[in-house]
Structures are given as structure tokens and as C-alpha cells.
């Protein structure tokens, strides 16, 4: 496979780091691929800018970061403003429309994923990150849905497993709704 680089960006408390860890864990432990995750965040427990980069490849990964990402996920306006220039011109931009008001359309493929709204509707706003993971599932198609669900169960606290799995399913449904090619 061609290496894929994804940047998740938002503010602390949105589960930005965790979503990158779950995706990385899934591809490394379920598919024997290589992945490198790097991150930065402010010293605040919640709030403050936060980003994680994940590179996935079938080959060993040397340079741990890439200059230009294939996918940028932004869950906050200031995060998008800061990182939009690191997205490839032909890259994919995924935003939460409730938290990102303006973004350049340019040459990007853009998906508006109401992650936070969906998570609130199903019972817990902290599951917005799993809505995004569900959305990415048919786009990336690296591990199976079952494998991803298994990793979610392993990685999140027991009392939050159900809401996270539900959020993952909601994200899958949004993806299939927005792009007919992902319905199978």
C-alpha cells in the first residue's frame, strides 16, 4: 500500500490523541503494517491546541513526520487555520461543521462530519472522536469493522465501551450516506 499520513487536530479533551492511537494500534496489531504516531499538545488538561500525526505504511517508516498530509481532520477552527497548509492540494479535509465555520475548498475533497452533534445525540460528547473513526473506516478500509471494534474495546475504559462502539457505528453510517461508493 501507498503510505498514508493523517493529521488529527482540535483542542485537548476531544480525544484527538486517542483516535490516532486506536487507528495506529489497529493497523499494527491486526494487519501487521507499520505506523508511527507523533503528537503535540498544550499543558492544559482540557482546552489548548492539540494535534496528532499518524503515518501508515506497509514498509518500515523512517522519517517520522511528513511535510504534507493526505488527510486533515479538524475539530476546531483555530486548529484548522493552523494546519490547513500542511494538507496536500489533492488531500482530504474532514471537519466538524459545528466547530469549524470556514475553510478553503480549493482543490481538497471536503467532508463535513457532524461528529460532536452525533456524539451528544447518542449520549456522550466525548465519543465524537469515535464518530470520526467510524467515518474514516470505509475511506481507509485497512482493517475490518470487526477488528476496529475489537481495538476500541481494548483501548477505552469499560464503562465507555458501549457509547464508543455506538459512535463508531454512527460514523460509519454518516460515511455511507455522504459517499455512495463506500456503501459496500
Amino acid at each position, binding site marked *: 500500500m501507498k503510505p498514508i499520513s493523517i493529521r488529527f487536530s482540535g483542542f485537548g479533551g476531544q480525544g484527538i490523541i486517542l483516535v490516532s*492511537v486506536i487507528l*495506529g*494500534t489497529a493497523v*499494527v*496489531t491486526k494487519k*501487521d*503494517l*507499520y*505506523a*508511527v*504516531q*507523533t*503528537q503535540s499538545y498544550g499543558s492544559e488538561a482540557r482546552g489548548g491546541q492539540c494535534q496528532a500525526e499518524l503515518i501508515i505504511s506497509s514498509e518500515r*517508516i*523512517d*522519517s*517520522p*513526520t511528513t*511535510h504534507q498530509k493526505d488527510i486533515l481532520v479538524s475539530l476546531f477552527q483555530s486548529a484548522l487555520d493552523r494546519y490547513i497548509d500542511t494538507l496536500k492540494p489533492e488531500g482530504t479535509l474532514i471537519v466538524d461543521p459545528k466547530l469549524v465555520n470556514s475553510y478553503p475548498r480549493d482543490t481538497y475533497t471536503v467532508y463535513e462530519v457532524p461528529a460532536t452533534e452525533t456524539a451528544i445525540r447518542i449520549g456522550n460528547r466525548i465519543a465524537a472522536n469515535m464518530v470520526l473513526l467510524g467515518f474514516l473506516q470505509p475511506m481507509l478500509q485497512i482493517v475490518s469493522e470487526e477488528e476496529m471494534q475489537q481495538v476500541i474495546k481494548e483501548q477505552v475504559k469499560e464503562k465507555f465501551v458501549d457509547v464508543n462502539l455506538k459512535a463508531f457505528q454512527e460514523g460509519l453510517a454518516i460515511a455511507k450516506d455522504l459517499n455512495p461508493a463506500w456503501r459496500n
Partner: protein
Amino acid sequence: MIDKENNWNQKRLKTGVHFMLGNYAAVEGALAAGCDYFAGYPITPANEISERMSQRLPEVGGVFVQGEDELFSIYSVASAALAGAKAMTATASAGFNYMQEGIGYASAVEAPCVILNVQRCRGENFATHADVMQMRWGASGDYETICLAPSSAQELFDYTLLGFNLAEKYRNPVIIMSETTIALMRERVLVPSYDEIEIVNRAYTDLQPDAYLPFKAEENAPPPMAPLGKGYHTLYTLNYHNEDGSIEWDPKGYDKLYKRITGKIWENRKDICRTEGYLLDDAETVIITYGSEVRPAMDAVRMAREDGQKIGLLKLVTVWPVPEEDIREVAKGVKKVYALEMNIGKYAREIERVCSRYCTVERITKNQGIIHTKDEIYQAIKG
């Protein structure tokens, strides 16, 4: 003393493939080596090592202590090692300063222990190789350091395990030179199975207490240790000590002691030093580097090779002692060597010292709290 034949706890090894934080990988490597004592004082970006040790050591019957400071941590680690433990501490640059006195002590009393230093920029959690000389020269007095430089989470596992084995073999502190880049990176880490792990344990004396001289050793070799609580009495002091451990000054004895303490490392460097060559066979120029800088350098070498440039790479697994023979061998066959590092240009002096008789040396340095990109290195080597 943990050894595989006796009280080995299967929980030590999480055999299999993981997506693991670099700091955690170092902990798992230590546990695989038999580490059963850890003391440390909080400091970023090394905290995840203490955090995981505090969870993992009790699971395997080991002891975790949060020290009141770095001095306690290093001295308790040296003491635990002398008492029979496989002991480790971890810190970051500012904390590593405080530990120098204890490292000098551990070197003088020949305490086999492991110190992991996650280098950071002064007061900031950004990546750097600024402490590379301090690894070797931080403490006062005569000593030699064994210092290993991992470039990935996997190597944090592998080299921490190797570090314990070298510490045991040579009765010397071993420093794992980590850095923010790899400490806070998550990566694929393969933890091997029980049968694939080689463990070295220190040599113990077979003499009775009345015949045992604690610092009597072969030339360029460590003395065998005595088990604690079996009637052997040893004074472990920083002061000059005679073969029986007494501290009456003897100028010739002092000379002999420190020839042995430094010689056991330096004269055994062929056994200790490790390097890895990449595309060296037909190379006309070579990048010599260590730590995380190896990674973008590998990409840059591939890019330059695509242009037809005959360039290779020598990765220094062992930074101290300087793997002089391997570096010299490379220098003899090429026109130019690039000394690549993430600081103002420090280890470059060592490379220049070894290479400049044979070829030119050009420095490629970056001191901005982040590793070189492959493009930056590619531009620098394009010629």
C-alpha cells in the same frame, strides 16, 4: 537477582506486536532484561517511564520508588545494583545534570546499572542531541561510559535490554541516550518470546569471605561481586580504594585502579561497540549519525541514490565508547563524511578526530528542537 532459571515471572514479557510509546518500550526492554528496581524523580518527557514502571514492577515482584530528587534516584539505583538488583533510573536533561555525581560514584564502585536520559531542549520538551558529550564527560574523575543511542521505539526496547546486559558484563553504568523525538512517539514494537531473549548476569565470586578481595580483578576486567548477606564485607566508596576495599592512598594503586576501570570498557570496545552500515559498499560519501537523525538520513540517502549519487550511511548504535574502528574503516574508503546531528555540532569533533586523516568531514547540524527533515539532509548532501 532475577535470572531466567530461577524466579522469572512470565508477566515480565508482553510477547507480540504492539503499537507502543517509546518511553513504554524502554520499560518493557528493562523488564525483559530482568530489571527489578527503579527509582526516578518526575520530569517531562521521561514521566511515562516512571508511570509504567510504577504499574509494571509490582506485577513482577520488583520495587518502584519515586525519589525525592535525582540524587536519591541515582544513588539508590547504584546501591540497589550493588545489593544484587538490576536497577534503572530515567530522567531528562536537567535531571541528568543532578545525577552526574552519582554516575561518578557508580563508575568508581563499579555498580552495574542503567540510566536513561531523554534529552530535551533547556526547559522545553523539544528534541535535541545537546547532551551527547555530557553522556561521556558529565562526572568528575576517570571513567568510561557505555552509551547507546536508539532511533525508534523498537530500539528503545532492544537497546535498554542490551544496556542491562552490558552493564552486568562490565560492572559499569550504561546510559541509554533517548530524546523527545522517540520517547513520545508511538510505533510498532515487537517484544520477542522468552526463548529469544539473552540475559547476561554479573559474575559472582567463588571465594569464601575471608579470601575475597572485592576489587581484585583481571587486567581490563571487572572484579567478581560478592552476594549481599552472606558474610562478605565490602566498602563501596568513591574514594580511591585498594583491592581489599580499604582507602589508604596508594599512588601506584590509584593509577592501576583507574587504568582498569577505564580499560575494562575502552580495551573491550570491539565487544561493546555496535554500528550498522547502509549502502556502504560502493559509497564515495557517507553520513555518520546516531539517534533519531538516522531516520530522515536513511530517506535522504535513498533520494540521493535515485539521483545516482554514491552515498551511504553509518549508524552509531554505540555512541560511547566511540566506535573508532568502524568509523575509520568507512573514512578510509570515501572522499567525504558528513557528521549529522541535532545540536550545534558536538559529536562531530569525534568524527573529525577519527576521520580527518583519511577524508574531509562536513558537519550537518540543526539546533531548532526538531529533527532534520529528509529534504533538508538531501539538500545538504546534494553537492
